[in-house]
């Protein structure tokens, strides 16, 4: 580690706003990382497996068959058709093979498919689209076969496991049964694909419910504010970091290409930048989100499309300055390629203002996204996102029977958001203080 770097670090960490900013951000990072533990999502459980697990906890000999019964029920509910389907599809595969060898006519194959669709083994579209896209249908059928084969194999293994269990008793049984249950549990969860970002409804009452031990931040819109704030941290990082990172990279690319190559390319790129800058950011993001349709992803796209220009201008100005530095000339004289000159020599010396700017923008992006959510253009319903929770509280901010009755609906998500933005701004401020040469004396 170089002296310069050490000195910079020292300057950075003796800067009070840097310290506060970094502390806040680390706090949020920890929350984001440990969200599943801080606010555990309610992952759905299978009733049979749940019962089996309960029985295992108070295990006694007579429970053994109850447990095995539950497991069998689970197996039935999951794999009842697996074998039949596998056989049927294997037959179909044979027919397809024959069809390829011209032993079977296309109509016969079609009839075979129809048979399977009647038993809901295959979707009707395979039959309907057969004539138009025969090859594609066959290709998809093979995929379908592979899927079912896999399922069938799993079903055989599962059944064996249950059968094995029947043969053992006592401690050993409990040990093995727990293993089997957790294996089934895993299969089950893979099958349902659970999204923890959707805040579950925890009540049916529509008025906000004040904080309690179970819901420490209270409830608004039937959603647990605590859960939303914790998981919303991840969303905030996602929106802020992804939008700023991508738009900064785009800006860097356009700005550095324009500055380094100059000429008409620069003229064109900078005019394009001008044009994008002539469109008001908030409105443009609003319009594009509206056109693309609601949702976090579309909102992020809109923010990126209209968020790269400042970086481009900044980096261009800096590069124009750096371009005439002698070390750049020297590198050119050594025959270093243009790309490496930009990446190795110019960018590292000009990127700091850009990074500072990017840091500051993270906060404002999160606010803009929240404003879009407030207008109903951002995050989807029930998505763990601070802006959404704040928009839930919009109708309660002015209070109920007294003006401060529903203080908690705005306080927690509001504080989370303000702190988050403040954190990034403090960090940006500090970085500027540390790296801005004018501030060094």
């Amino acid at each position, binding site marked *: 580690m170089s002296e310069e770097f050490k000195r910079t670090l020292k300057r950075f960490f003796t800067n009070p706003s840097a310290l506060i900013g970094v502390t806040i951000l680390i706090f949020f990072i920890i929350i984001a990382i440990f969200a599943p533990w801080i606010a555990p999502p309610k992952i759905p459980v299978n009733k049979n497996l749940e019962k089996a697990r309960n029985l295992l906890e108070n295990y006694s000999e007579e429970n053994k068959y109850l447990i095995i019964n539950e497991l069998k029920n689970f197996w039935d509910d999951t794999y009842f058709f697996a074998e039949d389907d596998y056989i049927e599809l294997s037959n179909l595969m044979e027919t397809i093979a024959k069809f390829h060898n011209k032993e079977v006519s296309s109509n016969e194959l079609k009839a075979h498919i129809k048979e399977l669709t009647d038993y809901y083994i295959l979707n009707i579209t395979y039959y309907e689209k057969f004539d138009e896209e025969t090859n594609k249908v066959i290709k998809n059928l093979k995929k379908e076969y592979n899927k079912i084969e896999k399922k069938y194999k799993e079903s055989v293994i599962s059944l064996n496991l249950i059968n094995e269990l029947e043969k053992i008793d006592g401690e050993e049984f409990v040990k093995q049964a727990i293993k089997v249950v957790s294996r089934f549990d895993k299969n089950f969860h893979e099958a349902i694909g659970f999204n923890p970002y959707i805040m579950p409804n925890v009540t049916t009452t529509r008025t906000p419910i004040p904080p309690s031990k179970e819901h420490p931040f209270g409830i608004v819109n039937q959603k647990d504010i605590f859960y939303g704030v914790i998981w919303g941290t991840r969303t905030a990082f996602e929106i802020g970091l992804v939008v700023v990172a991508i738009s900064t990279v785009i800006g860097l690319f356009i700005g550095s290409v324009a500055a380094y190559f100059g000429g008409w390319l620069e003229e064109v790129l900078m*005019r*394009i930048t*001008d*044009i*994008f800058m*002539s*469109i*008001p950011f*908030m*409105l*443009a993001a*609003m*319009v*594009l*989100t*509206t*056109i*693309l349709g609601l949702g976090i992803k579309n909102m992020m796209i809109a923010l990126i499309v209209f968020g790269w220009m400042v970086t481009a201008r900044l980096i261009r100005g800096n590069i124009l300055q750096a371009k005439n530095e002698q070390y750049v000339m020297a590198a050119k004289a050594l025959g270093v390629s243009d790309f490496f000159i930009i990446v190795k020599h110019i960018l590292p010396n000009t990127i700091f203002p850009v990074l500072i700017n990017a840091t500051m923008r993270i*906060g404002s992006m999160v*606010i803009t996204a*929240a*404003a879009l959510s*407030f*207008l*109903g*253009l951002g995050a989807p319903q029930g998505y763990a996102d601070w*802006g959404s929770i*704040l*928009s839930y509280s*919009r109708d309660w*901010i*002015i*209070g109920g029977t007294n*003006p401060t009755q529903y203080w908690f609906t*705005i306080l927690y998500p*509001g504080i989370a*958001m*303000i*702190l988050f*933005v*403040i954190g990034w*701004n*403090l960090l940006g401020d500090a970085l500027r203080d540390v790296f801005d040469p*004018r501030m060094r*004396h």
Partner: protein
Amino acid sequence: MTTYIIRRLLLLPLIILGVTLIVFSMSQLLGPLKLLSTYVDPNTYAKMSERDIQILMKQYGLTDPFPVRYGKWVKNLLKGDLGWSVVGKEPVLDALIHRFPYTIELALYALFPIIGVGIWLGVTAAVHHNSFIDQFIRIFALIGWSLPDFVWAILVLLIFYIGLGWFPPGNLSIWANQIVKSASFKNYTHLLTIDALLNGRIDIFWDALRHIIGPVIAISWLWWANLLRITRSSMLEVLRKDYVRTARSKGLPEKVVINKHARKNALIPVVTTAGQMVIGLLTGVVIVEMVFVRTGLGSFAATAAQQLDYASIMGVLLFTSLLLIIGNLIIDISYAIIDPRIRLG
């Protein structure tokens, strides 16, 4: 300098063309049927036969290749035909013109307190660098900068309308509105306060003002934060300059040093920012207008977006972009006239 101005003016059509191209390209993401709704009222074709819809699409050139479509669209634009606004229930252009004065009036009234207080805070912070006052103002700025505007706007409504009963939402009180809408009241500028004064109706003037102050407070904090940051850092820099030191060493009182020597020079970069702020205000009032039920461009855009009135939102976008372009042009040119160093830019 003339060449600079001419160059800027010549670039203007190019920029405007570019903006229209971007807006148009965005609209093309909609797909033909939804696009049709930007030209005609969607109710028209809600129950139309497939054939009639096809005819309508052809009529509006939705089946043409991109450049032709764009050409037709621009031609319509030049004729002032921005399509039909479902939300406004009138042509988009009319809707924009009807709403524009409310926004501009709000922006104008917001400007003075924002600039005055913002600069005052910035200078105060810089003069008391690192003191308690400075830290306090910095925190004030930081919170203003980080506070989501929709939360703050509703809080302002809560405090100043429900709590104190001072600043009601809306454009005008009903009684005042009726007078304004009556034939005897002449609309010279369509800016309520100014028209009120011109008509000699001081009561309406106060009523209009009362309705403006709430939104102004709601927007101000963010811009204060913005402006005082720039002023502060610019002022700090100037205070370190040799001529200020010289002035000090001459034994001039601190007040004179700051007022005469430092502040003037520190405000040069602030002026540009202030110019951009006027434009920023025009487009940054979406949420405040929504909360305070002001019928300006911002609330129009928000409602249109919520009701998927594509023609209207694109109209607002084009309109405000145009404002932005012309505003920037005026700022740049006047700045070039004031400060010759800029001209090369």
